[in-house]
């Protein structure tokens, strides 16, 4: 029997953007793989091509060289089994919370039925927003809006969740709270997660593995297993092993910057 394919596999991926003012090499020879149900965080300076990486997986952007495979097949167009959470929640301001969560189905098929609405409510319950179904986005805090964004991405029960700095627009406290929420959700319904972040602590707390990227053109500088047991909790954040590992990552990032 063959081994199950990796959820995501980058094979010598490169991306060069042609613009009016010349070309920008955003990514060069990116190679790494993410196993099914693995939680991988990507750390890197801004502009190093992290969002570009996600777009390639999502099938929104065709790589200029190399390829990305998802479950063993090269990505040529967007797939149904991938959910995306953006940096900003980008909800529809004219639709209530529930309508925002069912939006992907409505947008894809043109209609929604009772079952879809029921599963939207289920998702909202999972992200801790029970009772907020009929609220409008403007009535919610930034953290709650991002929870809606997560529920929306989870609605189609994707195997892969791509998260592009999902908590970076939130205040520090809400951000930490959302991190634990995400861990809880991930444990309740295991998924392959590729999580982009600027925060070393966030990466270490959440991920199984942390990839550190080089500056532009971006490629993988190092790929480290996080040596911290699960389940992780508030205590983990103050543990020595977390402190040491974060320190190691910090010096890697700073050395690269120097």
């Amino acid at each position, binding site marked *: 029997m063959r081994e199950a394919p990796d959820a995501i596999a980058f094979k010598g991926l490169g991306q060069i953007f042609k613009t009016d003012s010349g070309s920008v090499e955003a990514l060069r020879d990116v190679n790494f793989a993410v196993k099914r149900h693995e939680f991988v965080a990507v750390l890197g300076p801004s502009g190093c091509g992290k969002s570009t990486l996600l*777009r390639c997986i*999502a*099938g*929104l952007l065709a790589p200029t060289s190399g390829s990305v495979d998802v479950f063993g097949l090269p990505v040529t*167009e*967007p797939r149904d089994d*991938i959910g*995306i959470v*953006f*940096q*900003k929640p*980008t909800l*529809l*301001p*004219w639709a209530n919370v529930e309508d925002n969560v069912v*939006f*992907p189905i*409505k*947008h*894809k098929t*043109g209609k929604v039925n009772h079952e879809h609405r029921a599963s939207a409510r289920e998702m909202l319950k999972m992200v801790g927003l029970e009772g907020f179904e009929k609220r*409008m986005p*403007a009535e919610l805090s930034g953290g709650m809006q991002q929870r809606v964004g997560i529920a929306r991405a989870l609605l189609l029960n994707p195997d892969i969740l791509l998260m592009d700095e999902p908590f970076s627009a939130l205040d520090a406290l809400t951000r930490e709270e959302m991190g634990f929420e995400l861990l809880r959700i991930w444990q309740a319904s295991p998924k392959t997660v590729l999580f982009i972040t600027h925060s070393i602590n966030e990466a270490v707390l959440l991920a199984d593995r942390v990839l550190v990227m080089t500056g532009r053109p971006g490629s993988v500088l190092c790929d480290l297993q996080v040596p911290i047991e699960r389940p992780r909790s508030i205590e983990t954040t103050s543990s020595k092993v977390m402190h040491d590992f974060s320190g190691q990552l910090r010096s890697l990032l700073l050395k690269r910057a120097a």
Partner: protein
Amino acid sequence: MTSLDSFAASFSSARPKMRALMARLPAGRLRLVLLPALTFLAILVVWELATRVFHIPSYVLPAPSRIAGGFDSIPFGRWVEHVWATLRVALMGYAISIAIALPIAIGLTKSETLSACLYPLLVVIQSTPVVAIAPIIIVVLGAEDAPRVVITCLIAFFPLVVSTTTGLMATPPELVELSRSLRAPIHREFTQIRIPYAIPYIFSALKISITLSVIGAVVAEFVAAEKGIGYYIQFSTSLFKLPEAWAGLGILMVMSLGLFQLVALTQKIFFPWSLPK
């Protein structure tokens, strides 16, 4: 202390008094209606007194009471006919402008080629003085409503195109990516994302264009018409009946204001989320 300083000082000492006065007025919506109404009334009173005290001839500035008399110069039924003639052209021009502007805006958003072809043309149309081509249009299209509607469109549609295009482009790129990642049909990107996102922009253009439509209809009547408020104003001035002309102007203002409020109300009722907080 300079006189400017003392002026500022007297002003700032007057401020608390003003605020106390304001506080005694009814709060909220009523104040919003009451204050402008009182201001308007005050202007009318000053206007009336000024024309009497300074004996201003009515062809220079008729008193409000004379203007009110101007409304009696023709029977009510004739007023209705004039109002309807102008209103009909303005509304038809407005509706056609919207029907033209929306597809053009979608085209400009979606295709760079189309945008490159059309945009210069739109700018040329916009920079042509409509008043100057109005007589030509009337000659070409005859004396019925058609030329007047075309003139109205020429004035009203440009802000609609520009503002709608801006709105369609202002959609967060994440939502457009979400749409693409779902492989949704392209028309839904517009009906479910871009157009609703453009609603605030569309309505600000709709508000500008409705008043421009009235202007367009009046300009067309100035050139050639035998009915309409614009026609009536021109006819009255040609006979030096200035109070009557002012009465016509008053009706036009009420018409413009009413239509504007109607558009604003539509937005408030159907798209309350699109209003600034």
